[in-house]
């Protein structure tokens, strides 16, 4: 609307300016006329006024842009009025000055209200009538020098009339053209605007409802139709708007209408009942509509359904109330602050604790002032972290209450955002004095307990270590004892054995001595006899030779047996006796003659090499005797005993193979164990091979047994030469 208004103002200004230019054009003509007349009739007062007036016109036209349009209009009207009156008074009907009246009317109709224009028009018409009357009564008349009768033959009145005609005609033409163009523009602009508003209104979710002064509907948009629960506007014909409101709402409407008389729009909430009876809370923005004459033509209302939002709001208010109440009940301090740390809310508990009231909060109370000054920096850092989203929710601080007492607290806080921007902080403050105390006590208990446990553990550890070491010692001692016992057992057995051997040795030595002496007698006797036969009984010699040889053989064999016996029974500890292993083996075989005879074939495969070493002859005899004896005993009926010897670079190797019963594989590892025997009780001590093993070891040798059950056994002995 304002655009149209501007257009009209612009148009008026344009018309005025055009009129001014036209007036000036007219004034130029008038000036020419005046100058011309002045030359004809002389320069009179009239001419002077005329020229001054024309010059004024020029001046106004020249400054037309600086002069307010109202003044310009007045001037134009004045000029027109003056020209009109002057010409009419001067010329009467001789010129068509009445045309100016049209021009004046054209002007005033554009600038004045109809009433004013009408009055002014009447005045002008009456003035014209009056002048005519004055001419009729000959109060006014054409100057004498003008001959009215011959006037139509003169050129001047025609020129003036022509000028008048031109001015009016062109003015009317121009003004009308302008009016039409502005009208067209306004109409199209209005149409466009109306279309815009209509489509806006049609598609708007806000209800728009225009009601005339009588209370009937002028316009209603689809959104409003939905609110009113009607299909189209035609459903409202004849229905007064009040039928949609309760008495309560109508009262509000009346009050608001009254308020609106001042011309302002007003907004208020009502309850609207649709045609189908649905009640809605609505928010009404109402504006009065006025016509050109500023008269009220009705009311236009934009209506928003706020039922849901009102419900939400109520729920929100309820919720807010609930939480507030809960907050107040909490035995904690609950607070909210803005970004500067100024409290915006503090629950009763907090107010009591810090000794402040709602008024203080309204005046501005900083939460920081309740903190221990030393912890303000820490608090700031923590708040920054919280806003960055990385800080811990709960932090411990020291606070100062209204009694200036310091106490430990834990503050849990989270940021408040408003429109996605940090707006403050909200949190709870928990007094942890008691908890701290409990914690300290607990810690103390814990420490005591830990110390106690530690002490006990140490003691236990110590005791345990002692026990372990005692135990170890005991185990060690037991092992030692066991070893000692074993050794003792061994030693005892060996002692028994060696004692036996010693006794046997002494016995053997004694016996051999006692046998050797008689053998010596026999030998002596035999020697003497042989001599005797040689000297005296040469002829008998060959007869007794066989007998004597028999005696000699007996002596030799008996001596050999006695000597062998002696070898076995020798009981020295010396290790440096020269021992011929071949003779030892032979000695053994002599001793075993009883076992071998007629039963076992002895195969000897002795090396030609020297087969001696330095050691204990008696013991070696013992060792080999045991091996050979075992071989003999393993042969149940008949069999073969093979003895083979050979030398290597450093060792003497002796192998004794029998074709006896062999040894069970499971017994094989045990054969060298003391007291291990497969013989019937009392038949063997089980010490034979163990003693053999020991003797071979004493001679730094090795003994090895290979046996196959039922096939025989092979014993391999390796003895170092030196």
């Amino acid at each position: 609307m304002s655009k149209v208004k501007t257009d009209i103002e612009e148009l008026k200004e344009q018309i005025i300016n055009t009129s001014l230019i036209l007036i000036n054009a007219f004034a130029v003509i008038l000036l020419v006329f005046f100058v011309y007349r002045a030359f004809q009739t002389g320069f009179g007062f009239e001419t002077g006024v005329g020229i001054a007036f024309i010059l004024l016109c020029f001046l106004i036209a020249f400054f037309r842009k600086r002069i307010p349009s109202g003044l310009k209009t007045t001037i134009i009207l004045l000029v027109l009025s003056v020209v009109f009156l002057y010409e009419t008074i001067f010329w009467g009907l001789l010129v068509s000055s009445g045309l100016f009246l049209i021009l004046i009317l054209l002007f005033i109709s554009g600038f004045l209200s109809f009433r004013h224009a009408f009055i002014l028009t009447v005045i002008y018409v009456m003035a014209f009538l009056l002048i005519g009357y004055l001419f009729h009564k000959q109060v006014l008349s054409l100057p004498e020098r003008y001959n009215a009768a011959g006037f139509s033959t003169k050129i001047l009145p025609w020129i003036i009339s022509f000028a008048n005609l031109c001015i009016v005609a062109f003015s009317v033409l121009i003004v009308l053209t302008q009016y039409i163009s502005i009208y067209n523009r306004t109409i199209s602009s209005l149409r466009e605007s109306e279309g815009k508003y209509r489509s806006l209104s049609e598609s708007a979710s806000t209800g728009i409802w225009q009601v005339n002064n009588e209370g009937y509907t002028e316009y209603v948009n689809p959104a409003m139709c939905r609110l009113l629960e009607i299909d189209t506007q035609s459903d409202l014909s004849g229905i007064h708007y009040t039928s949609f409101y309760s008495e309560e709402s109508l009262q509000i409407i009346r009050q608001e209408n009254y308020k609106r008389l001042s011309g302002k729009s007003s907004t208020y909430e009502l309850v609207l009942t649709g045609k189908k009876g649905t009640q809605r809370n609505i928010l009404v923005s109402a504006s009065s509509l006025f016509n050109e004459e500023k008269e009220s033509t009705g009311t236009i209302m934009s209506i928003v359904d706020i039922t849901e939002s009102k419900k939400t709001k109520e729920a929100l208010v309820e919720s807010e109330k609930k939480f507030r109440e809960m907050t107040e009940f909490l035995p904690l301090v609950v607070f909210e602050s803005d970004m500067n740390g100024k409290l915006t809310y503090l629950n009763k508990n907090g107010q009591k604790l810090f000794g402040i009231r709602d008024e203080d909060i309204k005046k501005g109370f900083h939460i920081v002032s309740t903190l221990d000054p030393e912890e303000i920096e820490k608090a700031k850092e923590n708040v920054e972290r919280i806003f960055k989203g990385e800080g811990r929710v709960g932090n411990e601080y020291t606070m100062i209450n209204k009694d200036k007492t310091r106490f430990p607290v834990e503050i849990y806080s989270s940021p408040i955002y408003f429109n996605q921007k940090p707006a403050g902080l909200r949190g709870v403050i928990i007094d942890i004095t008691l908890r701290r105390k409990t914690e300290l006590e607990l810690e103390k208990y814990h420490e005591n307990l830990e110390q106690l446990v530690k002490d006990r553990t140490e003691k236990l550890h110590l005791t345990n270590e002692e026990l372990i070491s005692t135990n170890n010692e005991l185990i060690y001692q037991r092992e030692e004892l066991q070893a000692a016992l074993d050794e003792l057992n061994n030693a005892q057995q060996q002692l028994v054995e060696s004692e036996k051997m010693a006794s046997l040795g002494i016995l053997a030595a004694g016996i051999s001595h006692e046998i050797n002496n008689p053998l010596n007698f026999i030998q002596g006797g035999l020697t003497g006899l042989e001599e005797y036969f040689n000297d005296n009984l040469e002829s008998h010699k060959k007869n007794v030779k066989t007998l004597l040889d028999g005696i000699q053989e007996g002596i030799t064999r008996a001596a050999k047996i006695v000597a062998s016996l002696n070898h076995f029974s020798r009981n020295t500890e010396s290790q440096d006796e020269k021992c011929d292993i071949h003779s030892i083996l032979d000695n053994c075989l002599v001793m075993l003659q009883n076992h071998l005879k007629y039963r076992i074939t002895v195969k000897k495969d002795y090396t030609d090499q020297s087969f001696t070493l330095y050691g204990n002859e008696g013991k070696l005899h013992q060792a080999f005797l045991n091996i050979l004896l075992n071989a003999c005993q393993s042969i149940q009926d008949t069999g073969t005993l093979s003895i083979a010897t050979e030398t290597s670079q450093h060792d003497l190797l002796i192998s004794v193979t029998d074709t006896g019963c062999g040894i069970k594989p499971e017994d094989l590892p045990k054969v060298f164990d003391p007291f291990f025997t497969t013989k019937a009780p009392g038949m063997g001590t089980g010490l034979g091979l163990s003693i053999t093993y020991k003797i071979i070891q004493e001679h730094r040798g090795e003994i090895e047994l290979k046996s196959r059950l039922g096939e025989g056994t092979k014993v391999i002995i390796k003895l170092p030469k030196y």
Partner: protein
Amino acid sequence: MNQTPALLYVDDEPLNLTLFEINFRKKYTVRTALSGEKGLEILRSEPSIAVVITDMKMPGMNGIEFIRKAKENFPEIVFFILTGYEITGEIIQALEEKLIHKYFKKPFLMKEMETAILEVLK
């Protein structure tokens, strides 16, 4: 004609002494004694004795003890031991000390003894 070398044989068995004398008398002058003491007496009374053969086990002095004493007075005499025992440490020691020249074992072997005596008397 007492040019044959004289032997002394000491043994506590008279039979041994008799048989020894019978077997050796052809080639040597044989003196016999039943104990070490008697042997020493004979050695003192008969300086011609060059070789002594003694038993080991005897009442009173044993063979080595007898030789030890005899050797003190008659260092040039050669001593032999003839014993029924196997060789003993005592005998080995005496051999090492050159107290005795050789050790013979009973029953004696005529050849062995003769060879040894001849060797000494050369």
